[in-house]
């Protein structure tokens, strides 16, 4: 095989086999199902929020929001249980070249269990990400804002 084919073939194979998830990691549908696997319907609740329901039981609230990373928007989703606690935070779209570490499950897991009375301060109850300071700060602020808005309303 000529050298250039040998060099580019692995990249070509990888590129052709895997889907392009570079920017959009999750659609809203996929994120809803991840957050509420038991739900059989998602009822629009105004703005970009959905009530997750199974039969007549309210399972929680699913909220989609966006914040700025460094320059470009990060689209993310927060799932709240009926008492207003965070069940899950997912990054739906991350556009920038740096700071993507906010997508790491270990970092997002810190938000699980937070309520509208949690401090949600970067550097105290939420770890900063070295090299992704602005993205982690803005996502933390965004979750805090969502808890302030909806944390008491899912009852």
């Amino acid at each position, binding site marked *: 095989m000529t050298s250039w084919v040998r060099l580019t073939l692995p990249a070509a194979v990888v590129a052709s086999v895997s889907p392009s998830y*570079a*920017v*959009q990691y999750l659609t809203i549908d996929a994120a809803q199902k991840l957050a509420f696997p038991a739900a059989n319907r998602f009822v629009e609740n105004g703005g970009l929020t959905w009530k997750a329901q199974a039969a007549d039981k309210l399972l929680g609230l699913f909220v989609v929001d966006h914040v700025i990373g460094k320059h470009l928007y990060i689209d993310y989703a927060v799932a709240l249980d009926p008492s207003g606690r965070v069940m899950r935070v997912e990054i739906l779209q991350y556009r920038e*070249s740096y700071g993507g570490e906010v997508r*790491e499950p270990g970092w997002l897991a810190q938000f699980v269990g937070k309520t509208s009375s949690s401090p949600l301060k970067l550097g105290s*109850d939420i770890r900063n990400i*070295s090299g992704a300071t*602005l993205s982690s700060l803005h996502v933390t*602020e965004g979750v805090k804002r969502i808890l302030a808005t909806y944390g008491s309303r899912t009852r």
Partner: protein
Amino acid sequence: MSCHRRCVLTSTPSLSSTGWRLAALMTATALSAGLAHAQEVGNARDKSNAAPSGDVALLRKLEQMEQRIRILEGQLKQKDNREIARAHGQAPASPIPPKDAEDPGEPKQAKDQKRATGAAKPDWATPASRDLTGKTAPVNPPNSIIGLTDSPVTGMSIGAYGEMKFGLQQNPAAGGQWQNGFDAHRLVLLPTYLITPNIIFNAEIEFEHGGSGFDPDDKLHGTAEIEQIWIDFKMMDQFNWRAPGIDLIPIGYINEHHEPTAFYSVQRPELYNGLIPSTWKAPATSVYGRLAEGLYYTIQASSSLEDFGGDFATRTDAKTVPTGGYAAGIDGANALGFALPVRGDFQQLSNDIAVAGQLSYSPPVLPGFNGSVSAYYTPNTTPRGAYAGDAGMPLGRSSLTMFDAEFRYRVPNTGFEARGEYVFVSLGNPANLRANNDSDPTNNVGKTMYGYSGELAYHLPLGNILSSDWEMVPFYRYTFQNTQTGGFAGTDLNMPTGAGQTQFHNVGVAVFPSPQIVLKATWQKVINRDPAGANSDSVLGGVGFFF
């Protein structure tokens, strides 16, 4: 009834909102035209005889049409409102007021986003405009997340960072005299543009030391330069391509994260002055991606470092070093500080291409810990036409290998932070380096150069001042570097002064009024083995920003 214009009164649900508007307008026009006509007819008929049954029927029909139009207009308005609400992320009015609608602790940027859209209303009641400071604007995308248009961004966003420094410094060239001064060290503009959802443009345009000018009364001797310019092709998590451009060499942490908010001393950490010649940028292309949770890689090819540190204008048209002697790019005084590759006008002095690789890791088992290992290799740093002395024997090839390992650990739930770093440079063939062949016996280099540093810092919240949360970070850093080790070979006499082994003590504090602004003060003590002393202590203040 006769219509002067076409009446479109269908209840087709597939008609677009514009269509509805048009229909409503046309029927209203038709109606008024019809009414006017009916009026005329009515008047004409009134003149002749009493209102016949035809007119009553006509009027009743007109009333029914009016009512129908009002209903349609109402429906159209509701539909419009729902669409606006969806596009703007607005929740409809709710009887339950939210808590903490306006959190005074939020940094200014988030507050400005809110303010841009409406004064003191709670978040959910204020339509969040998509066009915040021109950063993005909605455009029809193929894969839109409902209500959130994802691409492309029609506006370019421009960020900036910069640092200013001032204070007292010992001047070694003046026998260690304490002199005070000021330096507008950097202003860097960061244009970012989402060309498509998967292709991102990024650049850094830098003005150093107040910029550059020609006339003596400008009093400028700085730089205007392109520090970075590249286009990223984002393909998948594990593999992305950065097209050839000017990019940072992926060695260590501070070279790539060199904004003033990323380090606590006024000056950049000492290992990044010479051993790692930050800001180390080069013509480069790379691939990068995420291999596993917390594990990221970069592999890069770039223009090689060059062992020529003389005046740029003296390069010959044949792209060789000038005759009659020239300055070294790699030496015992400046390490690699004068060896940066050329970025413009095809003026590189060799064909050599270097490779670099980096693995950075934030292990999930140790939250708060971030570390990286990186390496750089160039097969040759000797430029075309290199020679010893003023017109001596030619100098051959010499490779260069660099290795770096560093970590930053922020202990969770505490204010403690620790950083550590080790850098090692191996010079392939010191006999072929200009510094060992330039008739200067004091700037020679050996077979290797190395350095290490350790830093301790503590994050202290200062509370809410001027509408943001302030933080103070006192720190201490110790650095040792050795740029003149054993293994010298070359035509020079070898008489290093001991200035090649240097210790740096830095004590200071960095105050962050917000994560994007930093006010710094640092005292630095420099000790080396030169009998004349290092004479380079300083007490400096700094102001830095990054947004």
